């Protein structure tokens, strides 16, 4: 567990902190996620994706649940994440972070904003549409195409 902590605590903590904006709450999420993995290691298997990516997604989901003060909506064992390579490991992390920020920086502001509101704030597309005054369909398409842009940048 010490090895997993050393390798992945940064990404788990960062995601939780970005969503919740509170260091204490982010630390609690980090403890919760890693203890869950310790108690039930079978909740993760390699076919669900790299451990780092999987941890990033379930941390984000759990943090959004905490933010919206709702019970966990998604069973952790159901989350399949397909990404290569394991970018959340400390060695590649800072390089990946720079690249991702670069991709986000080239996106149209409205698209990046919709993507971040959806991912880091857990807003639904009607909530985003209401906030930005844009049509529902436009918001939906922006979110999807934003994700595909990220994929494309890393598949090159």
């Amino acid at each position, binding site marked *: 567990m010490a090895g997993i902590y050393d390798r992945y605590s940064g990404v788990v903590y960062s995601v939780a902190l970005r969503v919740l904006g509170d260091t204490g709450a982010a630390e609690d999420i980090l403890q919760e996620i890693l203890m869950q993995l310790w108690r039930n290691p079978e909740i993760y298997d390699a076919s669900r994706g790299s451990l780092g990516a999987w941890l990033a997604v379930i941390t984000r989901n759990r943090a959004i649940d905490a933010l919206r003060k709702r019970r966990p909506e998604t069973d952790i064992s159901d*989350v399949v994440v397909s990404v290569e390579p394991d970018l959340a490991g400390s060695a590649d992390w800072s390089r990946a972070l720079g690249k991702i920020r670069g991709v986000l920086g080239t996106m149209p502001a409205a698209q990046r904003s919709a993507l971040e509101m959806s991912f880091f704030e857990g807003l639904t597309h009607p909530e985003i549409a209401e906030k930005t005054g844009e049509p529902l369909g436009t918001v939906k398409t922006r979110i*999807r195409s934003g994700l595909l842009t990220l994929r494309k940048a890393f598949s090159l």
Partner: protein
Amino acid sequence: MTAHEQFGDDLALYALGTLEGDERVALERHLQECAGCRKELARLRGDAALLAMAAGASRPPARSRERLMAAVAREPRREAQPVVPIRRARATPWWGWMGWAAAAACLVFAVVLVHQNRVLQRRLFRVEARITGQDKQLQEAKELLSSLTAPDAEKYVLTAGNKPPQPQGRAIYVASSGTLVFIASHMPALPPQKAYELWLIPDTGTPIPAGVFKPDGQGSAAVVKPPLPVGITAKTFAITVEPEAGSDAPTSHPVMVGSAG
């Protein structure tokens, strides 16, 4: 537009956990059948994981590591699933189990329904049997009553010797239910616009009206179940001559009085 194109945007929202309502239900139904969309969902989650990298490179405080290690030490791990990724047969996804779960739920529901049906049938049989018995009793009571009060019922009064029949009234009263049946015979004819009124005289208190009647050509009359309060003990019954509409209290001397016995 193919199904995949139709669900394309929704898949992205679903990957982020922000798709709700009917759209979510429709997509989850589609995912059960479409391996291609399940694969695309996993890839979109991978894309979302890339986005998670943009959260920054914060490090948790040092105490966090100690806290975790202390918690781990307190809680022995269940043996002995490796955390390190080992490729194994993919677990059945949740949508794969839904069919079985639904089938099991249907089976349980069917068993409960069969049991309830039997209970209800037994109850129905009991109620029907009771109703049949009550119908029979009711029919007998109606026949008895109609015999007593039928216009063509002939009354025979038996007296000793050659004495002419005297006016006579018989009241059958059940105080606990407030039920009264009264039959009169050989009542004298009344003056115009007058009627006989029957009174229940309680142990204490004022007389209670118990029905207005006019005898037929033979002097016969009946009062069946007039409205009376329940539980009043009758000291006597009395009959007075009153206006046709009846009175709230007797306005003349009784022409007949009778006690129980």
